[in-house]
């Protein structure tokens, strides 16, 4: 198991190098000269002198290989540079945004774990019941409705309408921003903050919760029909005991993978949810930086997202190996 973990950790290094090198190359393929865009070129024709100064200031007129070398030299020293747009240190931007993203991701994943797995389990155990059919319909809808539509509808239902009908303030959820931003134990919102968190967390979790529920249901149904489950029941365990002791662990294998990937995804790719609720996270910042060709921000934030994703993947793989010993044994045998 130890060798397996070490090998997986070592794989992170080339993964990050390749991912960021590819992104760096891609940046210069995009249409539009970064300096012109920085000078406001998406809205008006800019003064050539201003463009020239921006090119000089940020070394954008250097050969690409020189820029590439400089980038990695700085990155290895954890100097992520400063934003072309507002000249803030990318390390500072990263600190704020990453924390916000991780908090939102934790809550979205908690919702996914708690509701996705419970609903999936209930559906599987009461197969073809009304609640099972209802689950199938609701999860299909939740997966299909675009994030901004769902976000907009929930804002209207839980914030706009309550305000228009004069509901007391404490019954109204918030639509924009992060509020007073007060937390206990890193991720538990206190004071007013929970009212800002609920809607984005629910919207971000909606699609993945539906998917987790369907996957849990399918996986559980497969497990319930397996031979070892019949054996478990034959040796005297009642239905629930058999499910908890023998079924769940096996049924959770694909679900754990899904949840792990989802957690990695919602840290860096929750762009639509972050935009809809003005939640200042990594995803929307990366998207904005690409549009405005703010290379240091794009690269710095993506580096962290790739890091987070590879670490989450590692955790998933390790937990997978823990849940199913055949995986690590197979690896050890092959090595």
């Amino acid at each position: 198991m130890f060798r397996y973990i070490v090998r997986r950790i070592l794989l992170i290094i080339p993964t990050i190098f390749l991912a960021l090198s590819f992104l760096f190359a891609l940046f210069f393929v995009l249409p539009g000269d970064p300096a012109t865009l920085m000078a406001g070129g998406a809205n008006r024709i800019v003064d050539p002198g201003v463009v020239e100064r921006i090119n000089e200031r940020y070394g954008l007129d250097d050969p690409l290989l020189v820029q590439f070398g400089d980038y990695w030299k700085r990155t290895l020293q954890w100097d992520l540079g400063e934003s072309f747009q507002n000249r803030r240190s990318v390390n500072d931007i990263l600190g704020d945004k990453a924390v916000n993203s991780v908090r939102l991701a934790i809550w979205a994943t908690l919702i996914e774990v708690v509701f996705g797995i419970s609903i999936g389990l209930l559906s599987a155990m009461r197969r073809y019941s009304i609640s099972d059919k209802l689950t199938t319909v609701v999860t299909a809808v939740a997966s299909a409705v675009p994030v901004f539509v769902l976000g907009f509808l929930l804002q209207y239902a839980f914030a706009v309408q309550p305000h228009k009908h004069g509901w007391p303030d404490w019954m109204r959820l918030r639509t924009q921003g992060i509020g007073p931003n007060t937390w206990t134990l890193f991720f538990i919102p206190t004071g007013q903050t929970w009212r800002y968190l609920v809607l984005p967390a629910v919207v971000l979790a909606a699609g993945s919760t539906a998917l987790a529920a369907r996957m849990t249901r399918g996986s559980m149904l497969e497990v319930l029909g397996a031979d070892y489950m019949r054996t478990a029941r034959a040796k005297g365990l009642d239905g629930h005991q058999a499910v908890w002791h023998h079924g769940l662990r096996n049924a959770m294998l694909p679900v754990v993978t899904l949840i792990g990937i989802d957690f990695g995804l919602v840290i860096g790719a929750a762009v639509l949810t972050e935009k809809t609720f003005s939640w200042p996270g990594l995803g929307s910042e990366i998207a904005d930086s690409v549009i405005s060709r703010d290379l240091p921000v794009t690269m710095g934030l993506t580096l962290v997202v790739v890091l987070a994703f590879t670490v989450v993947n590692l955790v998933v793989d390790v937990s997978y190996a823990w849940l199913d010993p055949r995986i690590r044994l197979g690896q050890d045998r092959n090595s």
Partner: protein
Amino acid sequence: MRRVGFGSGLVVGLVAVVLLATACGGSSGSAGDALVDLSTFIGGPAEHLDPALDTSTTGLVGALYDGLTDLDYSDPAHPLVKPLLAESFQANADASEWTFKIRKDMTFSNGEQIKPSSFVRAWERASDPDFAGNYSYLFNFIEGGKAKLDGAATSLAGVEGDDDSMTLRVKLSAPYSNFATVAGFQLFAPMPSAVDKLKDQADWENGLMIGNGPYKLASPRTDAEVVLIRNDKWAGDVNGNKWPDRVSKITFRVSADPDTAYNAFEAGEGDMTAIPPGRTKDAEKNYATTSHVDIAGVYYFAVNQEDPVVGGPKNVLLRRAISQAIDRGAINEAIYDGNRADATGVTPAGIPGHKPKLCTFCALDRAAAKLAFDQWKAAGNTLRTPLKIQFNAGAGHEELVQMIVDNLKAIGIEAEAESRPGETYFSEVAQGKCQICRSGWFADYPAYDNFMFDLFHSDSIGGNNEGRYHNAAFDGLVDEAKRTVDPARQAGLFQQAEELLLNTDMAAIPINFYKGGEVYNPKKIASLPIDGLGKVAWEQVKLRG
């Protein structure tokens, strides 16, 4: 059993968290003498707050910094340039040298006196090529400005500040009679001595920046909001009014887009926001808006004068036909919900010298358009391929351009819309790579030359003269107007130039003038004054109760 225990524990934990959080909940929102604005930062947080770097069209920086002069919009149709931090200003005979006498009673919000050296400091800082922002090219107006920006000089040769006599003398690189107006632009605002202590000037706007306007920063900006509180050391506006009852605290909150900001406004999370596209009528019905206020901006199409089909003197009739075939009123209703004014020229109301109904061929007249098109064909011209109307994609212009294509078809002119990537659109247009090119312009400062010179003078070819219009007579009129100190004579010259541009050469096709676009809660805000540049005069906002 252990895992079951974990599951139950998780549920219990979550319930406890929610209960705890609920118990902690209280009331919030803007209350009393405070205002929450959701219109300024739609789309993202403030790129810049430093007046040397900011390029936004919002009034936030104007609330933090006052300049040498300001516009008095008491009569919105005829704004007057008045001294603000200066007690007087004077130009020499040909407007090539300007003298500003600085008031002795003006201070920054930290109590430091504003002196001529405060301006010298600010201008040297803003023209430092290592720091200079996107508007720094305006220092080209000043003698030595170009050399400083190019790194060939270490200071602005034409600027001299004398703190003893409280006089700021500015020598220009060429005579310019509107310099007093430009001198009030935020780029030229004074800076306190605190900036001299900074290791990196970029840190100024990220900290507790000190200014001299009616408001000051309550705390350093964040990505979520900018909060201003009253600057009690402010000495008042151009008319000496200190607006003693001005709002005590303004929070500018970031929203992702106009629709989500409007949702937040409707949910009571803010007191004002921008009207989203197509919701003007809804906003006017349910709330109060600024949609009646004229804003100094124009939406127009530049026509490439070097294009053999539509450009040059031999195609004037075709351009006239195009302009007269466009149903501006229908476009305004269908696309802007009536929240624009049909253009009657290029220079909008609110710009000193503006002449109403200047353009002869800017109203819908299909018969005249058809006649002009027929005459153009009779002169031996033919349209072998459809005209191309280019626009920047993803910025909401598709529908408008399609309506124009349909308008042109109605009189027999074949045309097609051509969408171009927004990132490269304006650079391509600047290089002459377009035929009929969508464009728009908001005044940077309220001066007639900000339209005539910047958009149509031959010196601006390769820059904002997108149609590459070149007429020596037009250039001569604009140059003379820029030198002319007498306002009435200057206005007459600019108007002559614009008449030549539109009524003789038809070198551009104006579509509409902008209007105010804010919606606000009338139960909270009694009045929301917007100046002619579309900026909120924050110190003049009145709350109810």
